[in-house]
């Protein structure tokens, strides 16, 4: 405080305080504040004004000027006190969600996010080598590595890392294809019944005011928005890596898509998935979603979503896709209630359950039963074909 007061009371407002203000702006920039030259210039103007001589006013003034989001607004005081009053932190905080920060300290992936998902994979590969290629695994033999065969196979049974990589690539390609098709439909449907007076009159000028060329107002449809909620709990382990790829491609391809991962709590992972490089994106996703184990609280995760994110990410054309096996360790009543709330907001709720592809599966898990009444489409998601079946459904919304 003392130092700040000294410089600020200095009537000459010398180069010293100007330099200090510039340094402060730099600290904020390094911490993710969007501050341009215009903002710095205005900050100098404030500093030179009568208000600049009163530190009590300076803080709220600079906060209003330099913040752009609620997050900035909340964090500003900390930075201000640390910088001008020498309190608290000394060092620049690592960039929020920055790629540079995570690159240096990358930790090994939790097993469920590693690209070779099934635990049997390594084992079978090793046995292959020993046996000089005499494969004993039945599902490996009939894995004609054509795309079609891969598309219809349950992810659980894909053991070969190479095949797994192929499936991941297909999942990505599929998400992109889905986007292209959806958008095409959107454009083809452009037509509408209303006359556009503005353009009609404009065209009529050439004919001396007689509206010969009629211009029709076309309906502008906004593309579908996707919100994906992925269950990353232990029971979903075999499928998580696969869906992480799918999420990555979907967030990348849909201009309007948001992704969340949940297990015992909910994590917003869209920013991690916007990373172009798949491996790094999935890597960051894994870091953000750490804490796996200890059961799945679907109900509470949904409650979090409804309370903090739903208003922002859901609009009138939003399909919410939940990928989960429905094994909930929380109260089923809670899950039912939150599903009801979600259903009221979202246009459609799609629940993808990998177990549904298993033979003889019945949705008897209590959580799953509680959620069923609010689901518009309950579909299997154990292989690529089942995902592909989703696209025509979404296009109709």
């Amino acid at each position, binding site marked *: 405080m003392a130092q700040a007061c000294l410089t600020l009371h200095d009537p000459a407002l010398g180069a010293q305080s100007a330099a200090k203000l510039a340094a402060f702006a730099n600290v904020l920039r390094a911490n993710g504040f969007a501050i*341009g030259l*215009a903002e710095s210039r205005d900050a100098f103007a*404030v500093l030179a004004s009568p208000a600049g001589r009163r530190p009590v006013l300076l803080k709220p003034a600079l906060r209003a000027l330099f913040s752009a989001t609620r997050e900035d607004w909340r964090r500003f005081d900390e930075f201000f006190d640390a910088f001008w009053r020498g309190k608290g932190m000394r060092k620049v905080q690592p960039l929020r969600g920055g790629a540079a920060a995570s690159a240096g300290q990358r930790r090994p992936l939790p097993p469920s996010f590693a690209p070779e998902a099934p635990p049997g994979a390594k084992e079978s590969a090793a046995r292959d080598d020993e046996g000089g290629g005499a494969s004993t695994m039945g599902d490996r033999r009939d894995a004609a590595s054509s795309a079609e065969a891969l598309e219809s196979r349950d992810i659980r049974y894909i053991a070969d890392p190479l095949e797994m990589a192929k499936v991941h690539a297909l999942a990505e390609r599929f998400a992109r294809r889905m986007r292209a098709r959806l958008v095409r439909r959107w454009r083809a449907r452009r037509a509408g019944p209303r006359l556009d007076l503005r353009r009609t009159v404009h065209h009529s000028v050439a004919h001396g005011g007689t509206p010969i060329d009629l211009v029709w107002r076309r309906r502008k449809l906004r593309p579908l928005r996707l919100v994906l909620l992925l269950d990353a709990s232990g029971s979903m382990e075999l499928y998580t890596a696969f869906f992480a790829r799918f999420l990555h491609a979907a967030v990348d391809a849909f201009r309007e898509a948001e992704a969340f991962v949940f297990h015992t709590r909910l994590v917003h992972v869209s920013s991690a998935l916007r990373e172009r490089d798949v491996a790094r994106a999935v890597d960051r996703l894994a870091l953000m979603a750490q804490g796996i184990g200890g059961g799945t609280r679907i109900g509470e995760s949904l409650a979090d979503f409804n309370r903090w994110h739903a208003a922002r990410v859901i609009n009138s054309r939003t399909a919410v896709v939940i990928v989960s096996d429905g094994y909930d360790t929380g109260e089923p009543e809670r899950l039912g209630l939150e599903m009801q709330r979600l259903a009221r907001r979202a246009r459609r709720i799609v629940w993808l359950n990998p177990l549904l592809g298993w033979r003889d599966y019945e949705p008897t898990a209590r959580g799953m039963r509680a959620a069923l009444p609010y689901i518009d489409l309950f579909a299997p998601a154990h292989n690529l074909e089942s995902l592909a079946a989703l696209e025509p459904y979404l296009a109709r919304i």
Partner: protein
Amino acid sequence: MPLAREDIASRLAEVGYIADRDLATALWMMDFLKRPLLLEGQAGVGKTEVAKALAAVHGAELIRLQCYEGLDQNAALYEWNYQRQLLAIKAREGAGESAERIEEQIFSEKYLLERPLLAAIRRTEAPVLLVDEVDRADEEFEAFLLELLSDYQVSIPELGTISAVTIPRVVLTSNNTRELSDALRRRCLYHYVDFPDVDREAAIILARTLGVASSLAAQIARLVAAIRKEDLRKAPGVAETLDWAGTLAGLAIEDLRQSPEIVHDTLICLLKTHEDRARLTRETTQRLIGKVA
């Protein structure tokens, strides 16, 4: 010369808006730097009210643009009066005027319909322009708004460029239904409006409601703060608090403890969904009253 910060705070109080220090500073900076002010916060915290109070403080006109999905330039900026233009074309044609002359005539001021944004930059006295719920508008509109807010001029192809006569005071509000662009955020000063604390809410009740004693106002403010802490779908806003305070005053209640039944029955002023209403049972209300009164 912009008003000093203290003047703004006291004048806001005079027109019935109790501002905290941060907001008064932000409003002062808005005048000083000629930048728009972006207000964010939950619904019902009094964002729109800020603009109204600001207009009252400066004795300026309030021009309001309510944003919605699909809002376009025609609805926000200007529109030609087509029906009148068509009539004029026919009438003048009959009088034998030339096409060029007609065109010149029908694209003149007379046939121009001002919409809020154009109105705001053409007033001789700087008005307060309130762009309400800007997050509901499309991204295209946001980009256009950004352009207007940095240059304060618009071009109408048929008329030419219109520059601002005076720079309006611009207040934008957002409910966070969509993420606003960084460019727009950077262009604006930022203030996060939170629910007022108990003291300020009590002051607001006293300033805005007739016939409420200060002890009751404090009780109401405390109870509303407690209700906001309950797990509700929709936390009651300041406007709801004022409604409720007015209702209690109308029922001549002087102390919340004196008639918990009436308190519970009048909670419909605060709780606007069936779910919330069901959640706050009679017992809960009793408990809350016991805690705060």
